[in-house]
């Protein structure tokens, strides 16, 4: 038995080694971005970038901070968009889910179908663009980043199945006490559903933070910019920073363009990376519900 026990330990050890190696691979891209943002011009020209810069410098970050206005604006826009998107998404999906979760509601099937149909059929990118721009006049309007994705079949399914998992007696006894549907929804169902709502909230926030397609399609240069869009445009040029009147050209010559863009990329990515572990449990729970109901 002792020998058997030892053998199991050995296999476990191998699995641990495998996962540790895998974790290193997973964070390598983050590390490489960070390293490149710290390499000095001389070093990058002489020996190129490396994962372990010989003389790390914060000059790229200094440059970003000195010309912080465009970055700060993008950061604020991103936060505003993300928070509005999250709140709207949670509310709309929960309300919709509550309606379709009630077996006694006569129009339940049709309202459910209206939602699920969108999973399988759509007008396509070009048609959406034309409708949003020509009919709804959403060009350069931040609402285009917030509203369209706020109701989604998967989210409603997750919340609905959570509602249905709660004892139905809750609804019935509240009704006997004369509560209206609004009261039942806002005072009973919502407070009891924080795990499901947390899942929806965190994925909505991450989705909005990372969204690149809608900003790219609907926002012209010089209009409101999210951080993700800012990063996209920075990729092609650092002209946006340069166009800032107070830009320090002498400093620019000292750092490679890549270093500067990497610094902005790190500023975009790292907050999420550090904040995420605290919210992860919500994500995991939601995926478990999604997996059962998929």
């Amino acid at each position: 038995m002792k020998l058997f026990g030892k053998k199991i330990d050995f296999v476990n050890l191998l699995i641990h080694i495998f996962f540790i190696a895998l974790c290193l691979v997973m964070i390598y891209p983050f590390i490489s971005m960070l390293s490149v943002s710290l390499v000095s011009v001389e070093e990058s020209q002489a020996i190129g970038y490396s994962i372990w810069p010989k003389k790390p410098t914060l000059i790229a970050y200094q440059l970003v901070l000195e010309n912080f206005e465009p970055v700060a604006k993008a950061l604020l826009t991103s936060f505003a968009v993300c928070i509005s998107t999250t709140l709207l998404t949670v509310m709309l999906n929960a309300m919709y889910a509550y309606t379709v979760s009630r077996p006694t509601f006569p129009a339940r099937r049709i309202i459910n179908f209206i939602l699920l149909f969108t999973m399988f059929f759509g007008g396509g990118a070009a048609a959406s663009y034309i409708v949003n721009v020509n009919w709804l006049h959403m060009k350069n309007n931040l609402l285009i980043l917030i509203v369209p994705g706020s109701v989604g079949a998967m989210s409603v399914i997750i919340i609905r199945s959570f509602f249905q998992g709660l004892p139905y007696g809750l609804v019935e006894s509240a009704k006997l006490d004369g509560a209206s549907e609004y009261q039942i929804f806002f005072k009973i169902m919502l407070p009891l559903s924080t795990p499901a709502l947390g899942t929806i909230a965190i994925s909505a926030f991450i989705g909005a933070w990372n969204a690149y397609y809608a900003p790219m399609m609907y926002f012209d240069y010089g209009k409101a910019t999210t951080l993700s869009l800012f990063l996209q445009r920075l990729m092609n040029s650092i002209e946006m920073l340069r166009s800032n009147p107070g830009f320090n050209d002498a400093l620019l010559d000292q750092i490679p363009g890549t270093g500067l863009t990497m610094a902005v990329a790190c500023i975009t990515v790292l907050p999420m990376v550090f904040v995420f572990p605290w919210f992860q449990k919500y994500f995991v729970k939601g995926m478990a519900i999604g997996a059962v109901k998929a």
Partner: protein
Amino acid sequence: MKTKTPVTTPAKKGGSSIRKIQRKDNWQLFSLAIPGLIVLILFSYLPMFGVVLAFKDYRAIDGIFGSAWCGFKNFTFFFKGDGAMLKRLLTNTVGLNVLYLVVNTVVTIIMGMLLFELKNRLAIRVYQTIVFLPFIVSWVAAAYAVTANLTYQNGIINSALAKMGLEKINWYMEPERWTWILMIAYLWKRVGHGTIVYYGNLMSVDTSLFEAAKLDGANRVQVMLNISWPHIRPVVISFFILSIGGVFNSDFGMFYYLTNDSTALYARTDVIDTYVIRALRTGGNNVGMSTAIGLMQSAAGFIVLMVVNKLAELVDEKGTVF
């Protein structure tokens, strides 16, 4: 609902007031769904009218309904000439997506099972978190990491190669390598998601099964194959079916940003979605064409979904989606 004539008997009166409450409740329930319905109508159902664009010669001045009909021109355009473009796009789109989907499925199943073998809760949590991290990073940001590594002049990998006295590789000029670079990126981003799903699913196996197996002298591999695998198989199959419907639609961000939309790589990286976006951005009369392609993508995806769903019935009925 019909209006009711006034009732006189007490019993009926009671029934009517219950019905009244019921009706009020139903209106309240319906009103909760109204904001969601408005969003769906505006942003999902209005664009559906745009499907007619696939059969039209779209001109911005005339709008969606004013533009002239053009029959199937937008569809046939795609098949014209020697079909080299079509062949390339289809090979890349379907080939790469199927390859990545299959590899990803296999890897995540194995990783979910391996993680399930571990008992140290803290370690499991740490692994889960780190493996999942890439999922929350956008492709735009990931593209920066790729640039940092693959830039020709002074990228991390080329610098390391140079230091070892090896020849630098011109990554953005050699399309063959990108099949695998993109595969690594795809796995990097998605493996964590699948792993957590399958691991979570394994947690729900009745533990007495494992104990019984141990008593019967089954080894770990036997337990995996005979208890764990059958348990997660339905979930694996439904995820696979749902994803296979999308093989004609690619993860646009990955194919577009990671490759820097580099023309030299199109031979192996240009997929339908990147082709369409490029066509749309260069303007001209591409709106009808892109809608037509979108329609074909949806139709083809739906057919594949149905066929695979049917095939899955033969393997494991619990995994089917419909």
